[in-house]
């Protein structure tokens, strides 16, 4: 039985303008899982992510971390932000330092005072993310893929338990996008919990262990990818479409149950080839 890492209990959030962004959300994120948060534009995905990092404080409701109710004082905020790392959608809105080295050291320098240890940690993560040769470069003058790697390195260097990525593949070419997901998967294998927000249903279907569907600040559906993506009506209500794999599987075998859906492209091709051979 996997325990919950972070929980929102009847959490709501209103912007200072009065507009409701999150409406009484009850959400529990299991530890060590890969979780995808889906929803149309304006569904409240980014706001929800900022609630989890403590940037926004719920106007109503509670945030629990490892079963303990979270208090929004200065010390607790530092602690939460170290444990819940967030990589923003636009890398340019995250990069602040004049060099890659200083960018990766930024969070660590805010958290710890042991400069020697910080420098060792920075070198370790620069090496891990293949950024050692770029460490003196200005991050603003690099490619989108490199910028995303720097943002990831700068957050992961703080060694968070939950890694949140807001649209990790936005503005990235397929190769950089794949590299980003490979880096995230490697973190998951080390036991880190991953939460990404995305519009890409195809990516979420094959990648996630758990899918959360959001509409107008409320959770519309939550479950395994097969459960959530088999329900075309709910997806349409959320402003999304079924993944291509699900559509193809259902075209091939209408009325296929959620649990019978293929997990990936290879499984679908295998099934189709098997059926073709049987027919022949």
């Amino acid at each position, binding site marked *: 039985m996997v325990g919950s890492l972070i929980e929102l209990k009847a959490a709501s959030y209103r912007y200072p303008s009065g507009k409701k962004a999150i409406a009484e959300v009850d959400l529990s994120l299991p530890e060590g899982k890969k979780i995808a948060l889906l929803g149309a534009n304006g569904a409240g995905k980014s706001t929800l992510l900022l609630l989890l990092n403590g940037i926004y404080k719920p106007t109503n409701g509670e945030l629990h971390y490892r079963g303990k109710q979270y208090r929004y004082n200065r010390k607790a905020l530092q602690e939460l932000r170290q444990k819940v790392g967030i990589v*923003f959608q636009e890398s340019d809105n995250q990069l*602040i330092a*004049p060099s890659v080295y200083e960018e990766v*050291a930024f969070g660590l320098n805010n958290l710890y005072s042991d400069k020697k240890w910080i420098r060792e940690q920075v070198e370790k993560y620069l090496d891990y993310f293949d950024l050692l040769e770029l460490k003196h470069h*200005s991050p603003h003058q690099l490619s989108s893929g490199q910028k995303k790697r720097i943002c990831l390195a700068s957050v992961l260097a*703080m060694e968070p338990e939950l890694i949140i990525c807001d649209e990790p593949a936005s503005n990235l070419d397929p190769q950089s996008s794949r590299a980003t997901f490979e880096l995230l998967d490697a973190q998951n294998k080390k036991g880190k919990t991953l939460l990404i927000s995305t519009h890409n249903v195809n990516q979420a279907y094959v990648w996630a262990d758990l899918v959360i569907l959001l509409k107008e600040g409320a959770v519309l559906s939550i479950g395994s990818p097969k459960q959530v993506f088999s329900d075309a009506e709910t997806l349409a209500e959320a402003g999304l479409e079924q993944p291509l794999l699900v559509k193809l599987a259902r075209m091939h075998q209408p009325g296929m149950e959620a649990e019978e859906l293929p997990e990936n492209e290879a499984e679908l091709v295998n099934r189709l080839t098997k059926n073709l051979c049987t027919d022949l």
Partner: protein
Amino acid sequence: MWITEIYKHDHRLSKLSPTIRALYWAPAMVLTLVSGSVYFNFTMFLVINLFLLYVSRIRLSNLARLYRIPIVFILVGCMAIVLEIPATKAFVSLGKLSIGFSAHGIQLATLLVSRSLALISIMYFMLLTNTISEIAELMRKFRIPALLIDLFVITFKFIENLRNTGFEMHRAQKCRLGYSQKMKRIPLFAGLMAAVFHQSMQNARQLETAMQARCAGENYCFLQEERPYAISQLLIPVGLASMSAFLLLICGNYGW
């Protein structure tokens, strides 16, 4: 042309700590400030620029472009000092008003131009061999109040933000045939300015959020890579500073 666009991270002083690097420009700045010699100032201007081209690895054309705006400002400012109305030796007369150059004004303007150019070249040397965070770190070492350092960093970041946003929006306007009609240029530019400020504020807020998410406190603190100190690193800057001081003494002695 902006300094951040031409800054080379692999400049020839990059292996030195910002404190050692300061020894290359700080004595030159002090000597220029106290110098009253036009020859000394022009020599400093020339030497600093030659040294800057070698150290910073930037092209001469880029360096020349950096001087365009300051030179215009200096020359316009000097015109007010040089011109004499009514003049003893007029070169043009407008009715009864005679306009000419004053000998004392020319002398003063030459000194002003030489000193300003020398100081600007030293300032460029500092900016092209240090990142903004290194300068901030140096200011911390010199016990400059944290509030001033933060203001310095924030101002720099905000100008950079304004410039990027302005550039992108201006390009978007031009792509849609903006500025093609002379009569519409001023309202378009006014619209651009308003949009740039609005967008820049949003960008600044998002940057602030991203910094908070990584536990940023009240001060903008960056950690640079450790650079080892060695006595041998002092030889060149101390040598250059001594030669500059010697030159200033010669200029002072001969009344140049």
